[in-house]
């Protein structure tokens, strides 16, 4: 028994994304955003996408390129305050945005990755985010049913990958990546380094290889990763 090799060119990996796909994108701000995969998706130009991402990056970075390019029909997110373009498009009715509490977005994605149908929570009960969501009682108290989220594709940024798709992440670049790497029918990971089998210690893997479909090695680190001097 040996574990199969899942390395792939970025062109081939992104070409598997169809028009109209639902795409999860890792990252919280800059760290963990798969900038290189996103750039290739901009280049190939698939349209009418639903994106699921914590935030909308900043103007001129990450998924803002997809939004600016008119490829995004809908965004499921928690906070887009750092991207004025996304806010303008939301206000003008050119981008449908669904807001979630941040930890609930994380749990909905995780529930999708865990093959659950929904989670039940009291988070946001008093807020307008609860509007229209089914309510049930647990131990006599009201709670919201938040359905699981899955995607056709997840775009992941890893620190290291082995050729089978075992991944690790570094520092706060982990964030939504391990959750999304479980929650899509096709998981594409870009990695700053691709290692031979056995070079990632089995106890230190953050995303087990069986969840990952395609591994893309990065030949250079996107300049969008540079430290921002505000």
């Amino acid at each position: 028994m040996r574990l199969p090799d899942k390395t792939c060119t970025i062109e081939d990996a992104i070409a598997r994304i169809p028009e109209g796909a639902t795409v999860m994108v890792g990252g919280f701000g800059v760290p963990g955003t798969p900038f290189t995969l996103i750039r290739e998706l901009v280049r190939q130009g698939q349209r009418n996408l639903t994106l699921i991402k914590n935030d909308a990056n900043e103007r001129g970075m990450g998924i803002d390129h997809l939004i600016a390019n008119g490829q995004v029909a809908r965004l499921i997110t928690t906070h887009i305050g750092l991207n004025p373009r996304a806010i303008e498009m939301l206000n003008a009715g050119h981008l449908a945005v669904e807001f979630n509490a941040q930890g609930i977005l994380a749990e909905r994605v995780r529930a999708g990755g865990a093959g659950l149908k929904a989670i039940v929570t009291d988070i946001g009960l008093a807020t307008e985010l609860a509007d229209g969501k089914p309510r049930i009682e647990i131990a006599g108290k009201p709670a919201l049913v938040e359905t699981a989220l899955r995607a056709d594709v997840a775009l992941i940024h890893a620190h290291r990958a082995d050729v089978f798709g075992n991944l690790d992440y570094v520092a706060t670049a982990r964030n939504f990546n391990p959750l999304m790497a479980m929650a899509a029918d096709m998981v594409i990971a870009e990695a700053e380094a691709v290692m031979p089998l056995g070079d990632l210690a089995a106890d230190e893997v953050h995303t087990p290889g069986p969840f990952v479909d395609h591994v893309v090695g990065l030949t250079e680190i996107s300049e969008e990763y540079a430290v921002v001097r505000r």
Partner: protein
Amino acid sequence: MSDARNRMVARAAREIAPGMVVNLGIGLPTKVVDHLSADFPVCLHTENGLSGIGPTLPPEAANRNLIDAGGAYVSTVPGSAFFDSAVSFALVRSGRLDLTMLGAFEVAETGDLANWKIPGKFSPGAGGGIELAQKARRVVVLTTHTDRAGNPKLKSACALPITARACVNRVFTDLAVIDITPAGFTLRELAVGVSLAEVTEATGAALLLPGGEIPTF
């Protein structure tokens, strides 16, 4: 292991396609691993938290912290990963398990499986069996065709408590390979030296015969 059982296990091993993620249930299915070559591309999963199971180890070579779900001391391969029980079943329930091989008390012609409880006799709990049966993309059963008393284990309906409904795709027995199709049990292969009459006799429901010659294994 008898020749007939060994042939059944060897035949079941050929069910594994290159690149699959596979969970081998406790008992007969575990033996399938002995029929996979060292360079066959496959990822074996055990629900107690390991992808990439390597060969079983004798006690003197064992790691006290490294077992499979059946308690056997196993090893890793290059590229193995350990994870917790929630992640392990996330993999099962979310469709990442291509194939599971399970044992059975009874299989119904509808694909219902009973393999976890004999009321009043055997009630240890279901462990991970329900999720494996319900959520693996393909479920195959390895079992003797009849129980120790000679009663059929393939039946029109399960009498025992169900593990999962309409989950079994194929059954490997010491006598035959049988698919569960919309029409019911369908004979695909016969064990060498076993007659059609023998299999029909040992099966507790109608057995459909496809046209043409029936291959042997």
